[in-house]
């Protein structure tokens, strides 16, 4: 099975698992049942994966008598706090090379994890702050991805940080707060709730205060977009005057807000958080969006950018789910569209009309 097949399989297994959980939880309403039936009837592979998922659940039932699966043992493992990188769903080779602006590095700690057979490899560094080591309860860590890379990292408090392509964050935990600064790009946070230590994200013009949740933050030129996947967050605008009272606005799941310089909109807008965070699965999802936008999104991941040569094509609406690291599939898709030509040159992928 090549990696493309494998990715499609994995995406189907995800869907199968979601359906399995939804069904297994209790009776589904008529609409969901119809949707599930339709999903089954889309492809035999859907059925196969669903059966496969059932087998896993069954397997867990089977080993319930093993003392390793006693309630106590399970919970003890869950609270295991050892800092080690989390394996993403589709791990790939990641070599994070970090440079501070000054170019100087003090790797206080370096850990390396090699997941055999998967080739997942990345290193992390702990960079001491200016403080003496004795008070180093506070340390800043940096995580960075290059073009086309992604990174998933579990933080000391068990929160999980997912970093998209071309992104950088600094993470600074103190006794009273957990502060993450999104320096560039896009990140998703699964925040572990801590009643007396707030989780705060600074990102361009926006400040996000977590109220126990999962959310996505993306820096765009001139604005910051915050999308809540689950739970609630408070978003405030950061501006140049620190004394000015800061208004903040609360966002719930599937709501999004775009914050420009000091300007916080009156209300959030509805958004499909699943689509915003499709990058977590190395996918980009579009629903009826102009090709220009889709190409720009793709260009965040590809080595050769897509360039749309014909003006009229820029507004062509397309829908679909694409793998971020499978340019060929996207090109094939474009070629299947009527009146669209795709030409590969040495440093770009030229999309034009007939």
């Amino acid at each position, binding site marked *: 099975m090549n990696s493309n097949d494998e990715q499609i399989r*994995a995406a189907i*297994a*995800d869907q*199968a*698992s*979601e359906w*399995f*959980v939804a069904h*297994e*939880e*209790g*009776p589904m309403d*008529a609409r969901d*049942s119809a949707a*599930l*039936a339709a999903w*089954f*009837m889309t*492809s*035999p*592979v859907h*059925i*196969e994966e*669903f*059966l*496969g*998922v*059932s*087998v*896993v*659940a*069954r*397997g*867990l*039932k089977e*080993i*319930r008598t*093993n003392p*390793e*699966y006693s*309630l106590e043992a*399970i*919970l003890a*493992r*869950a*609270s*295991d706090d050892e800092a080690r990188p*989390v*394996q993403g*769903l589709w791990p790939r080779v990641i070599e994070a090379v970090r440079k501070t602006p000054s170019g100087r590095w003090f790797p206080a700690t370096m850990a390396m994890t090699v*997941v055999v057979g998967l080739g997942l490899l990345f290193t992390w560094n702990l960079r001491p702050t200016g403080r003496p080591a004795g008070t180093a309860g506070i340390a800043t860590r940096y995580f960075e991805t290059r073009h086309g890379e992604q990174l998933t990292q579990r933080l000391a408090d*068990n929160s*999980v940080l997912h970093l998209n392509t071309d992104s950088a964050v600094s993470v600074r935990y103190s006794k009273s707060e957990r502060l993450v600064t999104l320096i560039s790009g896009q990140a998703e946070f699964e925040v*572990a*709730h801590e009643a007396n230590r707030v989780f705060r994200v600074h990102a361009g013009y926006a400040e996000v205060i977590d109220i*126990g949740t*999962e959310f996505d933050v993306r820096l765009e030129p001139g604005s910051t977009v915050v999308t809540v996947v*689950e*739970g609630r967050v408070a978003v405030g605008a950061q501006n140049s005057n620190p004394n000015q009272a800061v208004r903040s606005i609360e966002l719930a*799941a599937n709501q999004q807000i775009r914050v420009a310089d000091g300007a916080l909109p009156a209300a959030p807008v509805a958004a499909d958080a699943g689509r915003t965070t499709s990058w977590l699965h190395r996918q980009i999802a579009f629903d009826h969006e102009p090709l220009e936008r889709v190409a720009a999104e793709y260009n965040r991941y590809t080595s050769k950018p897509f360039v749309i040569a014909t003006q009229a094509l820029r507004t062509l609406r397309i829908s679909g789910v694409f793998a971020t690291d499978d340019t060929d599939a996207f090109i094939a898709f474009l070629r299947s569209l009527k009146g669209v030509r795709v030409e590969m040159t040495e440093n770009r992928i030229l999309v034009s009309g007939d």
Partner: protein
Amino acid sequence: MACVTMAAAEPKLSLVERLFADHRGALQTFLLRRVRAKADVADLAQEVYLRMLRVSDQDAIRNPVHYLYTVANNLVKEHAVIERRRASSIDIDEAPAHEQLKMLPAFDGDLDAAQRGLRLGTVLQQLRPKCRAAMELRFARDLSYREIAMHLGVSPQMAKKYVAQGLSHCRRRMAQLG
């Protein structure tokens, strides 16, 4: 294909419960034993799919999962009948007898289950701690999502998400190991 009738007011049972209650036997045995023989499961899925497409009365699929298991279960039974008939004749396309013997578990289900348990254990270790715990609490300890959420300090929604992610990961890994 006979239409599957579904009781209008089914008692609320979890899928796994139902899987065992209604479809104990053929399908379970088939799926659990043949996790490795991917082609078998793919063929089964293909056949279930075709039968589903042939259903004219969409109402019969009011509970699609139940329907899926029922159809699959029937197919496996039919398959078993055919296999038994075939076994009495000699098929030169079949793998040599000693090859087949290697596939047979020495002590029927037990050894198989132990092996599967080990494998699943290995795959579970690859999950992040909370995700793994959520899955184990759900299926090995039968906790509700609300209870899991309380234990793990996350929302019930998140607990569900962990379970789905965990299932998907394990499913893919188990398939690859196969």
